[in-house]
């Protein structure tokens, strides 16, 4: 157990080094979420709420956070694709580290980063506008953790089905736009075209927004759905990555 924790620690520390060396995407997507919240809030006041009681500031923050954090799936995916491009994936496989240790060492810092992004965006949003989210921090913590795991799983799955950084970038953008748009993160479901709105519940973005806002779906259900998506995407990515012949 000690040896395993030691190896995971070595990998996690190294992942932090690599993230610090290339912070651009993380900074951009975090700042983007804050700026979009700032400019979208006035529009949120005018859009239908479909019974969600949260103030416009909270609705803008939740939507823009979910929208921008989906692009962070690219940061997660890059952790895998870069290992392939640099040929370090093979080197890691020749070490005593088990696959679960390699995954944990890579995933833990990324999970932490996704959580930090959420904290920054929600805190900035709460200083810009009244969001009413502060007292609900236990719910935010649960939803935020499940959503971070979900984004991480999506990123790993995208890395498993792509080969190059360019492919990952393209697929990541399409996935982020599709999931956030259909899920009501960019425009509330109630304001979407009638033919598109029913697809919302199939997007994890819908459950993330609902979880942050405490409606229309209960937070517990949102956490369960997001955790389920995370498990499925992780498992699928693990199988697909394991099948790749070096």
């Amino acid at each position, binding site marked *: 157990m000690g*040896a395993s924790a*030691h*190896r995971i*620690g*070595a*990998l996690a*520390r*190294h992942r932090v*080094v*690599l993230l610090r*060396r*290339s912070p651009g995407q993380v900074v951009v997507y975090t700042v983007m979420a804050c700026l979009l919240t700032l400019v979208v809030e006035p529009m949120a006041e005018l859009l239908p709420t479909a019974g969600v009681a949260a103030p416009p500031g909270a609705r803008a923050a939740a939507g823009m956070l979910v929208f921008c954090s989906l692009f962070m799936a690219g940061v997660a995916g890059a952790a895998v694709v870069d290992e392939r491009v*640099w*040929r*370090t994936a*093979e*080197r*890691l*496989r*020749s*070490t*005593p*580290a*088990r696959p679960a240790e390699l995954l944990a060492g890579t995933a833990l810092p990324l999970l932490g980063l996704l959580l930090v992004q959420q904290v920054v965006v929600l805190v900035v949003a709460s200083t810009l506008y009244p969001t009413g989210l502060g007292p609900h921090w236990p719910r935010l913590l649960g939803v935020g953790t499940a959503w971070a795991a979900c984004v991480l799983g999506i990123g790993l799955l995208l890395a498993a089905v792509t080969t190059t950084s360019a492919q990952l970038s393209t697929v990541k953008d399409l996935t982020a736009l599709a999931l956030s748009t259909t899920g009501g993160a960019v425009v509330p479901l109630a304001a979407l075209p009638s033919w598109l709105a029913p697809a919302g519940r199939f997007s994890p973005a819908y459950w993330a927004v609902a979880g942050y806002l405490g409606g229309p779906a209960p937070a517990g259900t949102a956490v369960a759905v997001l955790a389920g998506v995370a498990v499925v995407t992780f498992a699928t990515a693990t199988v697909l990555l394991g099948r790749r*012949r*070096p």
Partner: protein
Amino acid sequence: MLDAEDLRASFGRVRALDGFTLAVGAGEVVGLIGPNGAGKSTFDRVVAGIVRPDGGSVRVAGVDSAREPYRARARLGLAGQDLALYPTATVRENLRLFAGLAGLGRRAGAQALERTCTELDLLDLLGRRVATLSGGQQRRVHAAAAMLPRPAVLLLDEPTVGADPTSRLALLGAVRTHAQEGAAVCYTTHYLPELDVLGATLAIAVAGRVVARGTRERLLAEAGTDDLDSVYRAWTAASPGPGAALAGTREA
């Protein structure tokens, strides 16, 4: 120290290893030579556990790598044909990772890092990002990552490709030191004079198997020549060339 018996591995229709058998003793450097496509790199990858063989067995320092793959990997170091380093990280950061994965604690890792970097003349480069290094310097770091934990079995696949003379000398010196300390070294190269510098025994691989094995003197005597190039050409011309080992179409 390294016992590979009758290894077989195919990639689609290409039979990369076709009964590859090689044993390397403690303190021995084996120069693994052969034409492109002979299976040399695939052999290293099978021993290191990156590729699962279709048949055969491998024992690394007495550990069966099929039954206990992670214990076996803990006893070997691999520097493959392609550079495998993190370009945005420094030399020290790269080596710290591999020291940690090899189970070295902070103090032991620092000592191993200093010792290996002294051998490979990397001390002045520790703070430099790998992407800023020359090809030869990167080759030394690549080898250092494999040598750091002082493994019982060392697999080096063309470690001096593209290396300048300074880097080449440092690498060869470090390999000799490892062998003198008891490591079994499998050294793949196309530069035959390096094997003289290392005092290596030879294994000539062709079409997925070892066709000649022994000391330089013995192979020369058997061939009736004093030119190792002639011995190499004779063995590689006599056996099927690369690509001939297609499953189901092997020539007699």
